[in-house]
Structures are given as structure tokens and as C-alpha cells.
């Protein structure tokens, strides 16, 4: 076992998969950095995730692009149709608005339209998340919206081990996978197994066992849910925390098993307040386990307005462990 941050784990995983398979290439803006600039040092991506790849694997496999998300995401898709296994980075998930045709219509549908005659081993890495004053266009979390597009797999790791493991599964998948990394977690350190084993897509994890209510959370919200569960314990409430890790495919069995045990469901999610991940989970659980529910399910999400910039406003917009604790207590009293 080793201790490393989430960005270090992702970096190691990139080195591992690229060394193991020379069909894997990395494409994106500033992923080597400084292209066309004389002298200077490697940037290795704005969060350092792709550091050292270009010097080890060469510019032919680590490709800095112009700021042209449509062209380079489409290029990665076409390359995945013709024998390569690209990992393409969209610097912030907000920027997917620029290239959504290539994601929604091209990457998501190509394998289906070919009737599976070719696979589409495409991994799209992107960042998400509020809380750092980045404002409305660099802070969104779009995993719910992306998971509503048939043909896409969407994963949101909360730990260094899961980030590395999900990347390894994504590059080996038959279809396009979007790996969404929370900006606030890049510096988050935890222990990992030395070989950074693959984590199966569609397989969730019980973070903490409990009997009174089930809290479903992904990415940064897993840590808020854990803190909330710890605090709730002091009040005699035993919360079970589940991290599905993959939004789509969703580990429905794991969630149902827990809700059937606790009878209460709280989903805490940083994506959309309306028609987002929380609504999707609550909808499916209500349909599948209506009779097991002791209380109406609860969604803890940001406000249904764009992410504000100022510190006080952003703090009001973004749920915290306290928000989860309050909602859980209300639910227990209902």
C-alpha cells in the first residue's frame, strides 16, 4: 500500500496503461503544455494529471491541441473507430457545451449505429465541481445530464484508488466512458494498492455501514456524506453511505439492498437540482422499492440557479455536510 493524491494516482494510471498498450494515446489542450514555446518546462495538464507522459511516450502519442473541442473530441472518436484507444481531456466539463454534438451524437451513437461491428474504446476525462470561486462556466457538475445520453458511461471517482481504477476500466471498455474528476479532490490523498487495480464500471462501494438511512453520494460529496454520517452517529443515527462510483451504468442492486435495509433514502449530489442524478436515483428506488420506504426520499442538491462567483453566494449555493445532516435529521423525525 502507498499513499498518494488523486492526481498522482491518475498520473500513475496513465503511465501504466500507456506503457502496457501502445494503441493508447492522449489528446487535449495543454496536456503537455508549452507546445510551440521555446524553452520552458512541461505543464503536464492544468492539474498535472498528464505530467511526464510526453517525454516518456513522445509527441505522437501525447497530442497538444488547439482550443477546438469539437474537432479534437471528434478526432478522438474517429480514432477510436479505427484502431486507437484515445484518452481525450476536456479541461472543464462546462466546455462540453462547445463540443456536445461530438459527444452526444457521434461518440455516444457510433457503436450502436454500426450494430457493434466496431467498438469505441474512447475515454473522455474532464473536471467538475464548485467551491473554488471559478464561477458559472468552470464549476458545473454535469454527470446527470451526460448519463441521460444513451450510449455513454459516466464515472465519478471519490478516491485516488477509484480514479486510477476507473480510468483503467474506461480504456478497456467497448464503449465511450466519461471520467469526471472533481477539482476539489485532486489534492485528496489516501492509500492505494501498489498496482492500482482496475475498478469495474457499474460497481458501487459501501463506504460506511448503517441501519437507519441510506445516503447515496458520488465524488466530492462522498466525503461530505461521510462527515455527516460521523456527526449523525453522535445523535444516535446510523447512516449507511454508498458511493456508486459509476453514474451509468448504476449499481442499482447495491442501492436497493441498502434501502430495503434502512427504509430511508437521501441522495446528495452536486449536479442538477432538477432532473439530475438525485432525481434519477429517487425515481428508480421509489419504483423498485416503494413498499420498503418509511419516509419520502430526500434530495440534497445545489440551488437550481447557475453557480455564483462570490464566496458567500457560492457557499450558499453548494450543499455541505451540515446540509446533509440537517436533511437527514428532518427525515428521521418525519
Amino acid at each position: 500500500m502507498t499513499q498518494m493524491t488523486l492526481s498522482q494516482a491518475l498520473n500513475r494510471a496513465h503511465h501504466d496503461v500507456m506503457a502496457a498498450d501502445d494503441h493508447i494515446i492522449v489528446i487535449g489542450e495543454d496536456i503537455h503544455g508549452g507546445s510551440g514555446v521555446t524553452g520552458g518546462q512541461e505543464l503536464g495538464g492544468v492539474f498535472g494529471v498528464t505530467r511526464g507522459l510526453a517525454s516518456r511516450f513522445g509527441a505522437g502519442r501525447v497530442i497538444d491541441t488547439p482550443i477546438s473541442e469539437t474537432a479534437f473530441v471528434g478526432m478522438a472518436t474517429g480514432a477510436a473507430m479505427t484502431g486507437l484507444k484515445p484518452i481525450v481531456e476536456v479541461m472543464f466539463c462546462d466546455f462540453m457545451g462547445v463540443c456536445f454534438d461530438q459527444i452526444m451524437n457521434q461518440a455516444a451513437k457510433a457503436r450502436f449505429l454500426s450494430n457493434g461491428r466496431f467498438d469505441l474504446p474512447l475515454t473522455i476525462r474532464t473536471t467538475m465541481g464548485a467551491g473554488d470561486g471559478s464561477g458559472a462556466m468552470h464549476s458545473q457538475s454535469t454527470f446527470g445530464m451526460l448519463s441521460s445520453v444513451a450510449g455513454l458511461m459516466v464515472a465519478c471517482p471519490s478516491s485516488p484508488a477509484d480514479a486510477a481504477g476507473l480510468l483503467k476500466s474506461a480504456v478497456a471498455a467497448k464503449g465511450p466512458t466519461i471520467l469526471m474528476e472533481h477539482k476539489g479532490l485532486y489534492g485528496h490523498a489516501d492509500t492505494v494498492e501498489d498496482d492500482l487495480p482496475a475498478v469495474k464500471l457499474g460497481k458501487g462501494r459501501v463506504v460506511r455501514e448503517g441501519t437507519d438511512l441510506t445516503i447515496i453520494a458520488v465524488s466530492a460529496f462522498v466525503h461530505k456524506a461521510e462527515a455527516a454520517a460521523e456527526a449523525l452517529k453522535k445523535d444516535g443515527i446510523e447512516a449507511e453511505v454508498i458511493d456508486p462510483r459509476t453514474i451509468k451504468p448504476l449499481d442499482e442492486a447495491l442501492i436497493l439492498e441498502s434501502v430495503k435495509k434502512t427504509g430511508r433514502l437521501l441522495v446528495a449530489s452536486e449536479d442538477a437540482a432538477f432532473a439530475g442524478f438525485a432525481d434519477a436515483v429517487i425515481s428508480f428506488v421509489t419504483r423498485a422499492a416503494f413498499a420498503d420506504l418509511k419516509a419520502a426520499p430526500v434530495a440534497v442538491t445545489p440551488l437550481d440557479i447557475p453557480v455564483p462567483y462570490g464566496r458567500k453566494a457560492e457557499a450558499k449555493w453548494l450543499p455541505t455536510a451540515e446540509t446533509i445532516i440537517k436533511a437527514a435529521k428532518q427525515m428521521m423525525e418525519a
Partner: protein
Amino acid sequence: MELEDLTLMFEKAHFIRAFEGALAAASDAGEVPGLVHLSNGAEILELAVASALDLPKDQVTGSHRSHGIALSLGVDPLALACEILGREGGLSEGLGGTQHLIAPESGLLGSNGIVGGQVPLALGAALSAKTLKTGGIAVSYFGDGAANQGAVLESLNLAVVLKLPVLFVCENNGFGQSTASAYAAGGTSLLGRARAFGLAAAHVDGTDPLEATKTAHRLAAWVRDTGSPAFLEASVPRLSGHYHGDAERYRTTDGRSTDPLDRLEGMILSRDVPEGLVEDMKSRAHADALAIVDEATAAPDASDTALEAFMAEAQA
């Protein structure tokens, strides 16, 4: 061009024309699930480009108007017709249809329902060819309508920046659905745009078999030899509506282009050819195409098997 080359092109062009005519009739009879966008007028240009390719090492992406491109590349016409008609035995067992034709085994990486959406994908095929050192090139067809899409303009730039072996073929038929190219393009020279991005570029009259063939071969060879992108703008007439059934009220009958197939026929007849040769070739091509579309029409609707396989995978 030798007489043999001209007659071969003539036969293929008439087969494509007849195939589209038979599909139009099938559409009128209610046999086609959706709307079809016919290739009438672009046959000569597409055959000229196909003759310059090394298939299936070279991979081609096309627009919504790609029946003719598929046939020019040698895609199995029965599987193509079945796909367009949503019948069993289609290229993708009817999952794709007329705007999403996929036959990479013949060099057709895919056609596309989004105007310009196919162009970045061709960069990927070019990147694969370059990275895997296959010696292949990519070709992306798009229309003058797509020439105003960001996806296309970004792709022209990215192909130059990354030095990708891709040949862009802009079929300028003067129309984006009902809107004239002269209205929609700010600065009407698409060739000038391509050159401004740093691409080798040429314009060709897509109804001229000799010029189209010569220029397509020259640019394809240049892309293959240098590994750099090139741009071919071809003027082609759109002899039918945007889709079959388009009443074209926006268009008058004045100034309609002459049929490039008639031009080719005139060139053949100007040579010393046996009496009836041209008529025989035409009737054979038409009979063949009709038989294939009839066979496809008689095939059962594609079953749910392919659909169920995807649903099972999604639920697994």
C-alpha cells in the same frame, strides 16, 4: 481517359442514378421508414474520388447525402438498400438507416445525420492511419452548407496543425437545403478559406469526368505522399430536392444545371463506339439497380435481435 475508363464510370454512374430512382419509387410506395436525400448529380465526382483511393485502407466519412458515396466505394448494394429500407440484411441490421451508413470493410467509416458532424471523425481516421503507419488516408465529404459549421472550420485548422493525411471534399451544390450558398457563405470563396488555413486546395468542375479524376488523383496522391491535408472543392449540381419529395418551391426551373451523366454520354458517343453500346449499358445498369432494390423491398423488416442485444448490454 481511355474509352474503357469512361464506359466503366458511365455504367457505375447510371447504376447509382438508377439505385436512387428505385429508392425514390420505393419511398413513394411507402417502403422507406424515413426521408431519403438523393445523390443525383454528384455521381461523376464521387466516382472520380473513389478511383483515387486505396480501399479499405483509406476511410471515408460522408454527410446525410451519402448513398452515391457508398456505392462509389463499392459497398454491397443489397446490404446498402436493405439498410436504407430498414430491412433484414442491412449494413447495421436497420439500426442506422439512410443517414448513418457504415461499412468500414469497404472504406466507408460512416455517413452522418448532423451537418458537418462527420468531418472531425475523419481526422480520427487520419490520426489512426498516421499513428499506426497503415499508409492510408482519410477522406471527408461535406457540402457547402457544412462549410459554415464550426466543426468543419475547426477541423481544417486541426488537420494542418497536426499534419494529418486527410482529403476534405466539399461538394458545392449551391444549396444548404433551401438556402443558397451565395447567401450563407460570408466571402463566397470556400477555396480561399481552405487556403487561409494553410491547406493545399483546388477547385474542380464535378461534372467533368476528366478534370475531376485528374484532380482527385493529384490531391489524394499529395495527401498520401506528404501526410498533409488537402481540400478539394467540387461544383456539382443538385438535380433533385434536398430530400425526395421536397417540392422545391424556393427554386425556379431557370438555371438548372445540365445532367453530368449526359455530358459523359456525349464524351463516349464522340469516340468510335458500336451502335447501341450506350443504351445497352444504361438499361443494364438500371435493370441491375432495380432488381437489387426490389430484392431489398421484398426482404422482411429488420428483426428486434440487434436492438435486444444492445438493450441486454445496457441492462447488464
